[in-house]
């Protein structure tokens, strides 16, 4: 994909992402001010509360933003705007609180006494004397918070709130650095703008010029309204009947979400996508009906959702998962897409031929002379224990790599084989041989389409998705992944490719 095309595609997304980001940021900032200022007044008056309140705000600050967002999803039991808002408010409390307390307590005691001596009530002293005198410090705190909120709001993408973070998360996953840059630059620009807008508001207020004050306020409201307009102009009717397709945070998921979107839209059903969501967040969202559909993998569901340790044969596992999900969550597993994205042992084809290795069974003879590479978690997973024990594998050396470096390492001969992901495009790029697993030691990771209870009741939707089931081969998905990850194609292009593969396959089997 060329630069202009890519940029055009990203900029087309900007108004919607920016509007969501602005709404989230402004709501969080206003709510945070509304909570923190009264709290500051309270702790200034009741000194004994100062330590616990400020400590709480400090603790919130030390929790990593992304963890706080995930926690809010768990606590509130829903995804999207509300948990993101809650997390951002908690995250932004400290500067507002700390500065307000410092500012208010820093007002000269004799001036406060003069106010009281004049006959001001506590409230009048606060609003006419203490607050105006503390204002520069208080506003500095608000500005700090505003910048933090704009930045941290980009992390709300994985909990299903649309933001400028959508650029960043999808860009990082699909190796589209332009998308990442567009996301970062617009977030930075928004932060600077907001900061300066608050400053301007403060200055115009201090200048005691009614005309200037009004002009600044009107200009700010106009700018804000313009930013939010993409949200206001959206048709509420289409929202009601549209379905939401979710995706996890890796390339294949982005492509599959596009494939599903196109397939379903062809039937006249409007679709929105919520991409880049955390794996468990996504499942919770489906269970609560916040999203309608996404693709998961049997092995993942088996271990993470059903919490099962043993490995069952593919067909049994599929049936058991399907029954269990319906019974416990009302989620419907409508079928497999036709490919697996599983752990697979792979080695350079030439080397495999030289050593006469075609299956994992053939490996055991050579294991003592071979070095194996893997990602950080594989050696701790039951898949590895199963493989090792069933085939009696004892390699000369076990090494761990970042997943993207692992492929290069086996290609360059730093290790002899790796635990690859079976649909990764780099298997094609480096011409790796995937070794068969005749003993079935590796659990199946069949890609399955999951629907929420309400979505499963829509026959048009189920029928549309039925057209995809069984038609996506591992090879086709691997090629699609390669297009995005290695050849710099857009997700849309890769989805086009997969859809054409599906169409070709259908044609072949039709009489």
């Amino acid at each position, binding site marked *: 994909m060329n630069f202009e095309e890519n940029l055009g595609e990203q900029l087309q997304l900007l108004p919607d992402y920016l509007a969501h980001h602005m709404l989230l940021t402004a709501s969080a900032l206003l709510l945070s001010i509304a909570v923190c200022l009264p709290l500051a007044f309270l702790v200034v008056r009741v000194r004994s509360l100062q330590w616990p309140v400020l400590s709480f705000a400090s603790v919130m600050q030390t929790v990593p933003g992304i963890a706080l967002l995930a926690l809010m999803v768990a606590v509130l039991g829903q995804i999207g705007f509300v948990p993101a808002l809650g997390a951002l408010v908690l995250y932004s409390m400290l500067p507002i609180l700390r500065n307000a307390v410092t500012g208010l307590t820093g007002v*000269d005691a*004799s*001036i406060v*006494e*003069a*106010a*009281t*001596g*004049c*006959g*001001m*009530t506590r409230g*009048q002293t606060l609003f*006419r*004397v203490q607050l*105006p*005198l503390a204002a520069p410090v208080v506003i500095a705190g608000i500005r700090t918070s505003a910048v933090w909120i704009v930045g941290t709001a980009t992390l709300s993408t994985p909990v299903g709130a649309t933001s400028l973070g959508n650029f960043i998360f999808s860009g990082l996953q699909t190796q589209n650095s332009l998308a990442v840059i567009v996301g970062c630059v617009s977030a930075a620009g928004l932060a600077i703008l907001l900061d300066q807008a608050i400053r301007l508001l403060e200055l115009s207020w201090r200048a005691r010029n009614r005309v200037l004050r009004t002009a600044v306020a009107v200009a700010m409201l106009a700018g804000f309204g313009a930013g939010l307009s993409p949200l206001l102009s959206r048709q509420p009717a289409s929202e009601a009947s549209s379905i939401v397709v979710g995706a996890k945070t890796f390339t294949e998921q982005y492509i599959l979400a596009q494939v599903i979107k196109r397939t379903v839209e062809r039937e006249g059903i409007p679709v929105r996508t919520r991409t880049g969501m955390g794996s468990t967040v996504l499942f919770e969202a489906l269970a609560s009906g916040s999203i309608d559909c996404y693709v998961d993998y049997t092995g993942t569901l088996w271990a993470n959702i059903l919490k099962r340790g043993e490995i069952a044969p593919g067909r049994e596992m599929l049936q058991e998962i399907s029954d269990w999900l319906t019974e416990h969550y009302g989620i419907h597993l409508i079928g497999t897409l036709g490919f697996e994205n599983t752990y697979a042992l792979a080695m350079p084809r030439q080397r495999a031929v030289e050593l006469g290795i075609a299956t994992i069974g053939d490996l055991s003879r050579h294991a003592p002379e071979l070095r194996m590479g893997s990602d950080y978690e594989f050696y701790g997973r039951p898949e590895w224990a199963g493989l090792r024990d069933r085939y009696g594998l004892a390699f000369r050396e076990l090494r761990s790599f970042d997943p993207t470096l692992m492929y290069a390492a086996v290609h360059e001969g730093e290790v002899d084989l790796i635990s690859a992901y079976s649909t990764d495009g780099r298997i094609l790029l480096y011409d790796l041989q995937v070794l068969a697993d005749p003993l079935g030691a590796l659990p199946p990771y069949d890609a399955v389409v999951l629907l929420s209870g309400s979505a499963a009741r829509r026959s048009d939707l189920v029928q549309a998705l039925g057209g995809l089931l069984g038609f996506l081969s591992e090879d086709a998905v691997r090629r699609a992944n390669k297009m995005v990850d290695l050849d710099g194609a857009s997700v849309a292009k890769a989805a086009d490719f997969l859809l054409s593969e599906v169409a070709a396959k259908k044609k072949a089997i039709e009489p």
Partner: protein
Amino acid sequence: MIRLRNVSKSYDGGLTFAVREVDLEVRPAELLVIVGESGSGKTTTLKMINRLVEPTSGMIVVDGKSVSESDPVDLRRRIGYVLQEVGLFPHMTVEENVAVVPELLGWDREEIHRRVEDLFALVGLDAGSFRLRYPAELSGGQRQRVGFARALAAGPRIMLMDEPFGALDPITRGGLQFEFRRMQQQLRLTVVMVTHDMMEALLVADRICVMEKGQIVEVATPSELLTQAVHPYAAALVRSPKEQADRLEALSKASGA
């Protein structure tokens, strides 16, 4: 006008007393000055009159009514209060500072504006050039004049003053003391003023109340105090101003001769 009956204040539950068993009467239109060193309880006594400090025991009556039965906010709006120069609100213009109490009392705009003009004239400030300035742009003496104007704004009958001339240079101080005395007599204000400067007390007071270690040791007119102070501490306090006066007189005689 103001009466203190057996008033005590303790901050530690009765172990020590900042003010102990004070009895004092301030007459209408009188300027009473409380003199003492820091820690003598003079400021605490003053602040109990407008309830900035609550007494531990005893009774204070203002205008025939016990202050403990008055609403403190109401009470303070009826009593003018002047502190050392820092008492002005730095974020308000001079005019806004002066208008604070009338605004709290809900006067209308026009009335406040007229009142502010009058007050500027009364305290000797040019309204045109000072109205829109901020306290930081004024000299110490000008600031204290604004402080008087603010305290007088709502036309109180009573005024409490805590070291009002303390932060001024000697020349400004002398002039302002004299002017304030004239103003007080003209308006027939009842004033309680606190100072640690006995010379100042002697020059402006109708009567002087000398405090030591939380107790009143003597109440007398300036001339009584100068000529026949009873308590040794009161006598000691007037010794230095007296010696200064004698010295000045000797000097002027020497040059005149």
